[in-house]
């Protein structure tokens, strides 16, 4: 199990800065996901680790081995980095059978034919494609093709696995299945994995560490829990979470000896620990952390129902408090008529406050 270390990675294409200045450490055996909208630089970073892109500056290390260093003038070519890479399109060679697709690289490594055969058998078994040995990629379904790509990795026994949105071409059901398969693979191979996706569900379910990127910069790096519950900045708070987070802009005021966030229509109580100078703040609260009651409650806010979206296990409710829109998430299948009243309240513990100018979490 190897550690991957990136230091000071910068990459631009012409005038565009794809990666601005990224430091990243992937601990041995970790499953790290790089998550972000398209154009954020995640794929560039992944390809840089593989050696398919050359950063303008920085350093990349696998364990003790320097594979890239601008300062020292080292660029180990991808052929020698010994990583496993799954492409979004799987990149199977269409003129070769499944067997040939898996073994071509093995034969390069001068293994005995017995060894090659055993690795082939093993890897196909692990993805349940033993009977498809002699088939051509055009004769396989999307899911099967993906599994062939995976079995290539298994056969090569790489210790570092890089995956570039490998599930995005699959239908929803298959995607869920394959998610589990990939995680299992990571554990069985005892590899260090870097996974790139724009799908946060994948990121949150699969990863040990999630790195959120935007416009070439790392927005936050942490466990799925931290990312979700303690976003470092507004971007992360907004990007993570489905349905989306609720945002309330307002000002800090003192009332009755306690600090409140005054968002005009709603006033949030704050803990008195606040000591910063800023006055303009944004509060976020997750839809599922808002308390909902169908009966009138004291000191709760009354809201009107605007839309109901049952999703099976949950229901998403869009309500309005005056002019403010709020999204609620309730853990049951709710049937309600629009316009019906509801009452909501906010638990101070679940609120996050961000400086409106810097976007940073005030950690109150």
């Amino acid at each position: 199990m190897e550690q991957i270390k990136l230091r000071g990675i910068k990459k631009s294409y012409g005038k565009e800065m794809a990666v601005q200045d990224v430091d990243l450490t992937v601990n041995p055996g970790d499953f790290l996901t790089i998550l972000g909208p398209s154009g954020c630089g995640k794929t560039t970073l992944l390809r840089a680790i593989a050696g398919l892109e050359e950063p303008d500056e920085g350093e990349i290390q696998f364990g003790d081995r320097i594979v890239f260093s601008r300062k020292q003038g080292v660029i180990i070519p991808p052929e020698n980095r010994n990583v496993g890479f799954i492409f979004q399109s799987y990149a199977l060679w269409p003129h070769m059978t499944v067997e040939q697709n898996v073994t071509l690289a093995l034969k390069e490594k001068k293994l005995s034919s017995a060894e090659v055969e055993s690795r082939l058998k093993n890897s196909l078994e692990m993805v349940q494609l033993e009977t498809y040995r002699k088939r051509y990629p055009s004769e396989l379904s999307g899911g099967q093709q993906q599994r062939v790509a995976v079995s290539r990795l298994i056969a090569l026994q790489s210790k570092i696995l890089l995956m570039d949105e490998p599930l995005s071409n699959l239908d929803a059901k298959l995607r869920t299945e394959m998610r589990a398969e990939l995680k299992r693979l990571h554990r069985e191979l005892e590899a260090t994995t870097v996974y790139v996706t724009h799908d946060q569900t994948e990121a949150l379910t699969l990863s040990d560490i999630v790195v959120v990127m935007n416009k070439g910069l790392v927005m936050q790096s942490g466990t799925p829990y931290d990312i979700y519950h303690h976003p470092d900045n507004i971007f992360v708070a907004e990007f993570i979470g489905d349905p989306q987070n609720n945002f309330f802009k307002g000002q800090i005021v003192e009332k009755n000896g306690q600090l409140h966030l005054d968002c005009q229509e709603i006033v949030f109580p704050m803990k008195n620990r606040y000591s910063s100078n800023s006055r303009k703040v944004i509060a976020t609260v997750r839809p599922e952390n808002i308390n909902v009651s169908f009966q009138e409650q004291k000191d709760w806010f009354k809201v009107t129902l605007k839309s109901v979206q049952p999703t099976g296990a949950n229901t998403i409710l869009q309500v309005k408090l005056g002019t403010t829109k709020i999204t609620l998430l309730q853990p049951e299948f709710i049937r309600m008529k629009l316009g019906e009243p509801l009452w909501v309240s906010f638990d101070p513990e679940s609120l996050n406050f961000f400086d409106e100018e810097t976007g940073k979490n005030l950690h109150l």
Partner: protein
Amino acid sequence: MSKSQLTYFYYKLVNRPHLVLGSVCLLILGFLVLTPLLEIIKDSLSVQSYDIAYLPEADIGEFTLFHYERVFTGPLSKALLINPLLNSIGIGICVTLIGVSIGTILAWLIVRTNIRYKGVFGTLAVVPYMMPSWVLALAWLSLFKNDRIGGAEGIFTYFFGILPPNWISYGFFPIVVCLSLHYYAYGYLLMSGALASVDSELEDAGAICGMNRRQRMLRITIPLLLPALGSAIVLTFIRILGTFGTPALLGLPVRFYTFSTQIYASLNASNNGDAYVLALVLIATAITCIWINGRVLGVRKSFVTLTGKGFRSREIDLGAWRWVATSGVALFLAATVFLPLMILLWESLLIVPGDYHLENFTLEYWIGDGSIDETYGEPGVFQSDNILSSLWNSIKLGLSAAFFNGIIGLLVGYAVVRGRGHLLSKWLEGVAFAPYIFPSIAFGAIYIGMFSTSWGPVPALYGTFTILVLITVVKNLPFTSRTGIAAMLQIDKSIEETARVQGIRWIKRMVRIVIPLSFSGLVSGMLLTFITAMRELSLIILLISPSNMVLTGLLFNYNEQDMSQHAGAVTLLLTVIIITGSILARMVSGGFGLSALKNG
């Protein structure tokens, strides 16, 4: 430079095999292609030995603008430059219009409608291109010559008793007809490829918006085809400007001179000054056409991207017109393909040329042993050592040139496509295309000088078979580099990247992955080279020696000595071989390559 900077630079190179490849190709090609050009320019600006007649005081080699003044402003400029140029441009425009139209219509009928016998038509449609271009001209003369050039009667006169007027038999009209019927194949090839790639869904979208069929054709289909159409027009036009055989044959009797005949005449007289200035005008015209094409099309290099998914191509039902169209195409192909070949065959069977009575027929010229004295005792085609050895040389030349050119075209395509965006890639693309606009005859003359000495490890190549192959490869590089580029564009870079990441080195990647996947592109490039090499003459005429004599050289001699039966038989043989080669190539490439895999 510090050590780390050096090693960094080294690694950057190692990581970019296409860059190394591209630079090597550029250097070699630059030498092979640009040196002749530079020499042409230099010689056009310096006094040549021929000029001593006009400039008795001058030293050979000194700088002069004499040639340019003479060609552009002197009293001869009308005869040397202006009239022939206007003639060539006139022919060029007409042939391009007619030829590309025919090619497009044919392509549309065969690719997009439900016409019958598509397979047969598709194969036959390119056959006229496989025959040397002057075969049609010879056939025309056999059919329509009148008594202006005397001799035996034309076939038309033989059967109908009327003499065609001069303007039908010679000059502008027959030149345009014959060239159109030969070069429509360019238009056909380019447009059929483009038409096959236009996704029906794009047209359906138009239908949903309420466009009728005519509107869809005008507003959607045709604009999508514009890049291919533009290419077809430019390529055809440039080719016509430089074409020599047909205008010489049909123009001379009525003193209709074209640009190429003037260049050829000047070179013949060793008047290099005139010849090179004219050649440069030709090259400049060609470059202008390419530039105009680029500006008109703008950034739209190609609209026919292969997304690999959701591709449907629906046939248009011609309804009642189906049989009309089918018979129309059949008749057309019969006239342009079989008729000239029939006439050649007929001619080769006559004892006395021009006498079409049955008693005059004989197989002597095919299998005889040379007892007929008129033809200097030359035995029939299958008995003649001369012909058989020339045939073998032609095939050798064709195959070697095709093989090397295919590989080089592929490598150039690889370097250009993988290096897209860099200056090197653009230059390489340009240099690889440049030979297309050079007149062949000038190329040949200059290569004698270039290869008379050794270059490093390469010995002097003059007089060897190697130089024939070399010059044929260079002249056909425009074709193979285009097909190479097209084939490479089809291969997504991830296919190669996954191999890199798995540890497969460059050579193995090329051999096991890139080449097999671009195989059909490779083969079509090779095929084009084979066809042109087999028909080539003006390129190699100065470089061949008797031991390397090729079939076209022999043909040239037969025509000079008016041995029309042998000429006809040999031409027929040549054409049959070319056609056979093409069919074999089709069969071989049909079983491999991306297209087969997409359908398989």
